């Protein structure tokens, strides 16, 4: 079991090195005119040289990569090309915003999804059909359109919730929550339907399994078959799916943050991409991968607890 976890951690480490490396060289290839785009067309040659020198852009690409890597290991992601601030100072306050959004979405699609899944697995046929129909639609509605519709209905029309923007919880916890409701729903929606479907399918599989047949025939109650055996056996596969959905939601957060103008990592990522601000993007990709790694480890631990076969191995 520990060996398994170790192997997975090693894989995560590979991810942590490979992705920033790819992004670095991708960006480096297109970053010849950074000085020009930051300083403007009127900048003189000497201004540009000075700019390049301060940021180390006069060095060859591979040298820049290794000096970046050396700093990154110590949590120093270099200076932003556009603002010359340390990248970690730019990203730190934004991390909290992104985490509020992503963890919120994770909670919503896990809890609501599993609830719907259980209801449709155990309820009557009509409930099952409705959940089926809703999930076909739910999985097809793209999150950016859903976001716009949510804004149209709840912000513009009903004026219940703010359309865009973010309030720090230390300023006003109530407004903070209100500013997160719509983004979290938009981000979680596709995940809810996927979790519901997986929960339902796994529970039905368990209810129809040979062991359920044996247990039922030997006197186990229907309640226990559904709420003890089926639910317990659905847990591990559902948790695995949660991991996949989470990675998807992380990507989705970039778009959702831009729609709702949340000052998180995602909106910074887009802005920095348009400005070719390599160090900031590098920093964000490292943050994202670290989040993925942490979630993967948590899921591995959960699976170890949930699956007796893994636990014993």
């Amino acid at each position: 079991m520990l060996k398994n976890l170790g192997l997975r951690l090693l894989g995560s480490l590979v991810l942590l090195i490979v992705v920033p490396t790819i992004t670095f060289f991708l960006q480096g290839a297109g970053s010849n005119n950074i000085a020009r785009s930051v300083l403007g067309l009127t900048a003189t040659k000497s201004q540009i040289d000075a700019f390049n020198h301060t940021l180390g852009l006069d060095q060859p690409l591979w040298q820049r990569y290794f000096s970046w890597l050396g700093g990154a290991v110590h949590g120093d992601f270099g200076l932003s090309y556009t603002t010359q601030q340390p990248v970690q100072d730019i990203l730190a306050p934004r991390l909290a915003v992104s985490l509020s959004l992503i963890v919120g979405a994770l909670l919503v699609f896990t809890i609501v999804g599993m609830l719907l899944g259980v209801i449709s697995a155990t309820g009557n046929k009509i409930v099952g059909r409705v959940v089926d129909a809703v999930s076909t639609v739910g999985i097809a509605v793209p999150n950016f359109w859903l976001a716009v519709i949510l804004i149209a209905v709840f912000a513009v029309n009903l004026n219940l919730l703010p359309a865009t923007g973010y309030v720090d919880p230390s300023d006003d916890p109530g407004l903070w929550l209100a500013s997160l409701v719509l983004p979290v729903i938009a981000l979680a929606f596709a995940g809810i339907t996927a979790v519901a479907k997986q929960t339902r399918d796994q529970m039905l599989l368990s209810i129809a399994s040979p062991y359920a047949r044996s247990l039922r025939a030997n006197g186990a109650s229907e309640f226990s078959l559904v709420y003890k055996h089926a639910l317990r056996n659905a847990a591990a596969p559902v948790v695995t799916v949660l991991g996949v959905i989470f990675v998807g939601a992380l990507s989705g957060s970039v778009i959702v943050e831009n729609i709702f103008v949340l000052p998180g990592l995602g909106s910074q990522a887009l802005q920095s991409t348009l400005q070719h601000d390599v160090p900031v993007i590098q920093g964000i990709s490292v943050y994202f991968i670290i989040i993925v790694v942490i979630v993967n480890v948590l899921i591995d631990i959960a699976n170890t607890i949930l699956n007796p076969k893994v636990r014993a191995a």
Partner: protein
Amino acid sequence: MTAIDTPAVPGGPSTDLPAAESGGRPPSRFRALREYLRRPLGVIAGAFLLVVIVATALARVISPYDPLKQDLFHSLALPSATHLLGTDKLGRDVLSRLLWGGQVSLLGLVEALAVAFVIGITLGLVAGYVGRVIDNVISRLTEVVMAIPGIVILLMVYSATNNNQHIGMIVLGVLSAPTLIRVTRGAAQAVREETYVAASRVTGMGRILIMIRHVLPNIWGPIIVNTAVLAAVILGIQGGLNYINLGVNPPNPSWGGMVSEAQQTLSQQPWLIIPSGLLITLVIMSFMLVADALRDTSASNRSRAGSAKAAAQAVSADGDDVPAADEVLLRVRDTSVSFSGLEVVSRVGFDVRPGEALGIVGESGCGKTVTASAILGSLDASAVTSGHVIFEGQELVNAPRKVRAGIRGSGIAYISQDPMVALDPSFSVASQLGELVGRHDHLRGAHRRERVIDLLTQVGLPDPADVARRFPHQLSGGMAQRVSIACALAGRPRLLVADEPTTALDVTIQGEILGLLRRLQQDTGMSIVIITHDLGVVADICDRVVVMYAGQVIEAADAEELFADPSHPYTRALLASNPIVAEAGTKLLSIPGTVPNPADWPHGCRFADRCPLRLDACTEGPIRLELLPAPPTHPDTLDHAARCIRAEELETTNQLAAKKTKEAA
């Protein structure tokens, strides 16, 4: 699956079995098409996609306006005859922009899909068919790619290539390939061991040729289904990218970009968010529905045998009068079971007396297990049961749930064929067995535990405390079957139904389990109904035997009598084909042909096709199950019945044969 915004796919690739699972060749394309056309949702979705694709391709010809032409006097107009879908804030025609924008979206979709398809199939085939190290490398690589939040890479690519949609979509294709790699790999692994693939390998055909000629054609089903799903996922991601102006350069139209433009004028003209967003949603949904329909089509191609010809069968009208005794624990009478109009068990009848072991014997497909399920009340909800199953005087056919629930485990208990799947893998032995003990004896805590250990001891497990702690995967087959038996004993049942209880076990264990059942029967006085195709098991444990063929009882007798005096040609054939009970020195025979499908049951004798003693009269009408006169050799034998017009003849020849053997000795 890539990682952008649309996560797990309904049904998921992992649940798709390859179409060629049954080992057959793929069904003809026309068959598949006909099957597909039977699914209205799939047809509507497919037709919608076709319309969208054609309309988009013809944008140059059919679009009513130039998509970039502004008309500030008619901005933000609602739909009208001149502008069918209205105009945007610059007065541009929405319909025209949708048509032109569709070109960007669909071209990008084709690019991404093509890349994912080529990579997915190539790597998947190699990983699945060649296996070993290559498989390992590809699988690890797939895992890593799946764990990357794809948008990080995509943002870089767009930034580095100055917003180039084509390169972006190609990268998206690479990031999406893992789904198809996994599906192809799984499917290829499944067909790798099929006979026709192995045969080509033996003939020395090269690997690549085998993959292209024999593996690929048989795994198209799941690949195409998942490609359709992937198309939906890619469209959603692409829309999101276009929404944040990646991959398109305004004012050029794109579907995602139009949602973003509409958002800017949301408070003035909410209508504008409808056409573009709804169109994307409908196109994505159509791809999903097409995938669903394709999945159903390939699923029904796999399981079409039997169900296709669900013609109503004429029920034989004889009143199977199986003789009865006074003291009966379980009485089965005229019990028929049908699934969607197709009868699979026809008017079966027999009795089980207290303390008796009854064997139900026959080949696969004779209705033994369905009969057992009818007794247990564990038939699928779609099954229709008629006749009587009377347990301790109580009618169980269509009995209220409560009556059934009161009998489960305490009246009638059950052990299944494969012990390895008969226990819940997620709970320890103590937990599952304890649950049943709690149900039946209302014990808790230490008392419950004590009873659990008692039961495990009772089924002959040497270290019950250790077994109680274990999980099912830590048990051997024999141990698992003993635990299953302990589960069945928890309610102290009067009747135990055992469905092929030894078939899945090693030969050495089989004897032990049968011995255990015999001992338990003596100790507890319970009755046993044992379903088996193995006459050796019957000889070992049963007092009475019911032989079933094609859904009917064709012979019933005391075990000893049946072996001495088989009065139905099928029983004779069964005996002659069994190495344990066949007479020494005679040749082992196999029965030519197979049991007919329920849809093909003949009106006359159902065994006639395979019977060496067939007469013309056999096929003229239904044959009755008739009581035979007690033979002089066993004058005290009761209740020997057979469904054969030549039964008495057979009995006579048996007696002659027996006489001969005696004389020879």
